[in-house]
């Protein structure tokens, strides 16, 4: 399962549980979470002045859930009482998943190796310059010189 669909599944279950009213992923990869009470709850909601001071947060495309400025901002808002701690926890979980879906996999880079040409006896084929140095009994990796080419 791709990490992008993992994010979609996570969002779906969060919305279903009521933790998040909506999550919007912009074309540029920015993510906005909406924690406002849903319509059902809004009918019984307390007066608007008693509702939370903040009820949604947006993060840019290139962001990380752990560490960094966003975490510091959320911690400061929670400590000041203007952000719900559960909103911060939900944000961190979604951001972590979002970051994973944004980061390209490097698995193929670790397994790809440039094939080495070999001759009929199985020995690596040297490049022209390296072959000339070897023929002259010069170790190509331990040359001492004045920087001029031979």
């Amino acid at each position: 399962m791709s990490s992008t669909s993992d994010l979609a599944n996570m969002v779906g279950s969060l919305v279903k549980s009521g933790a998040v009213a909506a999550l919007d992923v912009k074309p540029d990869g920015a993510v906005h979470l909406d924690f406002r009470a849903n319509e059902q709850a809004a009918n019984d909601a307390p007066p608007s002045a008693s509702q939370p001071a903040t009820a949604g947060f947006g993060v840019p495309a290139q962001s990380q859930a752990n560490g960094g400025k966003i975490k510091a901002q959320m911690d400061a808002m929670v400590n000041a009482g203007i952000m719900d701690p559960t909103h911060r926890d939900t944000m961190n979980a979604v951001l972590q998943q979002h970051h994973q879906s944004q980061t390209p996999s490097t698995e193929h880079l670790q397994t790809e190796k440039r094939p080495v040409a070999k001759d009929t006896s199985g020995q690596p084929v040297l490049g022209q310059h390296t072959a000339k140095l070897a023929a002259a009994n010069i170790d190509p990796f331990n040359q001492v010189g004045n920087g001029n080419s031979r």
Partner: protein
Amino acid sequence: MFDPEEYIQPLDNVYVVCNNPVADGGLSAITVNTQLTGEKLRTFQESIRRMVLGKLFSPKFAEVILLASEMSRNTRCA
């Protein structure tokens, strides 16, 4: 000329989205309650100002947020 109103998007009768005018690596938007009054409003605004002093919010983003938090009061006085 910077106009903080351009960065405010109404959502419903209570909340608006305050978009960050500065791409500073932090939050790009915050949904703010425009109906806060009295002590709650003062606490909220003081918290935002402290975050500017602590370099967590840019002054421009704070200006957008503070304007949004007073929108209902400005509407009542108008």
